[in-house]
């Protein structure tokens, strides 16, 4: 059933592309250099692969993304655990945390460039800032949402505070932690693109910006579609990790 659905989506996307191709190349509904058909986009894509520009810029983006995202996980999960399990921490650190969360953090990107220069540092930082909040908040919700009757049961069978945390709360929160990581991936993608739009000279975001400024829209759209594919593949991987790490967790809407 699941596989069937996946094929249906693939077919659907293929049909959309076919219609698009037909409208531009066949029926000439729009100027192909203005609205490039899928065939032109594919040609642009293979062209960028062949001349080495795509691999080079993609490598720059990947390095930053991995650094920023790992940092977000390493910081976000412990912060969420602390906020979720300690009343004191959430009272004292909660308000600044929520304020930072409510802030449109990408607005700081021009300033980050001013402070940290045009290199990788501001890009890594904005990716971190985008990804860390969904991770921390979901972790916190996971800890807080633990069924109190499970905690009661653990106490009946002799678990102390630390054992309740290790044997019940952490496990119960695991699916939500992974959900947070999945949302973090989506936000990190935004961070990558914005970071390279503003004050960048390398990376996929920069390349999109550059090519569309040169009116090479086929290349710009090829790169945009590549980002769509990467985002969906990464999210699917995290979902897969959740299915493997938390097989008991019946997937809801997340």
């Amino acid at each position: 059933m699941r596989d069937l659905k996946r094929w249906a989506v693939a077919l659907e996307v293929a049909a959309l592309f076919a219609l698009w191709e037909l409208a531009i190349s066949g029926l000439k509904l729009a100027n192909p250099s203005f609205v490039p058909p899928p065939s032109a986009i594919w040609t642009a894509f293979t062209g960028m692969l062949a001349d080495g520009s795509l691999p080079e810029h993609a490598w720059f983006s990947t390095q930053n993304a991995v650094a920023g995202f790992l940092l977000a996980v390493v910081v976000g999960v412990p912060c969420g655990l602390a906020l979720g399990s300690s009343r004191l921490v959430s009272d004292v650190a909660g308000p600044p945390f929520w304020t930072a969360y409510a802030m449109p953090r990408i607005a700081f990107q021009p300033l980050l460039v001013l402070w940290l220069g045009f290199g990788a540092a501001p890009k890594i930082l904005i990716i971190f800032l985008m990804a860390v909040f969904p991770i921390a908040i979901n972790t916190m919700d996971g800890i807080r949402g633990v069924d109190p009757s499970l905690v009661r049961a653990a106490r009946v069978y002799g678990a102390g505070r630390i054992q309740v945390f290790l044997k019940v709360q952490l496990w119960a929160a695991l699916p939500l932690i992974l959900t947070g990581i999945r949302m973090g991936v989506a936000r990190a993608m935004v961070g990558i693109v914005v970071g390279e739009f503003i004050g960048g000279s390398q990376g996929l975001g920069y390349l999109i910006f550059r090519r569309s400024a040169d009116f090479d829209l086929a290349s710009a759209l090829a790169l945009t579609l590549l980002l769509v594919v990467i985002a969906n593949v990464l999210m699917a991987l995290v979902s897969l990790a959740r299915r493997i790490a938390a097989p008991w967790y019946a997937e809801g809407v997340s």
Partner: protein
Amino acid sequence: MATDPIIQIRDLSVRYHVARTGNRLIAVQDVDLDVMEGEFLTVLGPSGCGKTTVLNCVAGLLTPTTGTILAGGRPVTAPGPDRAVVFQDYALLPWRTVADNVRFGLEMQPRLKEGAADRIAEAIRLVGLSGFENSYPRELSGGMQQRAGLARSLVADPRILLMDEPLGAVDALTREVMRAELKRIIDATGKTVVFITHSIDEAVQLGDRIAVFSSHPGTIKEIVSVTPGNRDGLRDQLWKSLESDAVAAARGAAE
């Protein structure tokens, strides 16, 4: 042979502070109750009458406002391995298989490390779940989940089993089957049981004695003994005794 009761409850009262209204809610008032070793005591009363509060106090999950509870002669201050609880909502850890959930009943007691595997297998066999050791709770029916909960409570061989409407969340047919199963398992282990229910049938069918609760405030109205001969008569008597409470509760809920 006159022995001391295994559970002694004296002058137990529990009051809550209701944050929303600022009032104090009296959940349980002046409860005195003795439970003898090997006895099956059912606690019968309408919903919201405080029976679960009493059970949580005996389990050590709740500290009474006033009064004392002795279990095996020692005052109850916290949960202990002599008292196991079976919960209405099963409270199985969803990320653990049946066998690992049963193991949970042993894990926090280092003295039982040895022979744990045998104990677990035996408990699972006793409740009739052999073959489902590696299933996750969500793959089991309600009745089977409660069997797993029962196995978890039995695995460390506690003296006292506290059961909080264990059949409250399963369907009517399963409940009939499970009642008979429970009776068989408890008879086989000879445990002392405190069993909470709001079903007169269940109380009469399972209990050696029945403690009847009334609500507002929650307190014991009467304690009756069950003998094979008086079951049918008891049903009518208990219904009359509870009718006004039940009607009041239904009205209250409707308003």
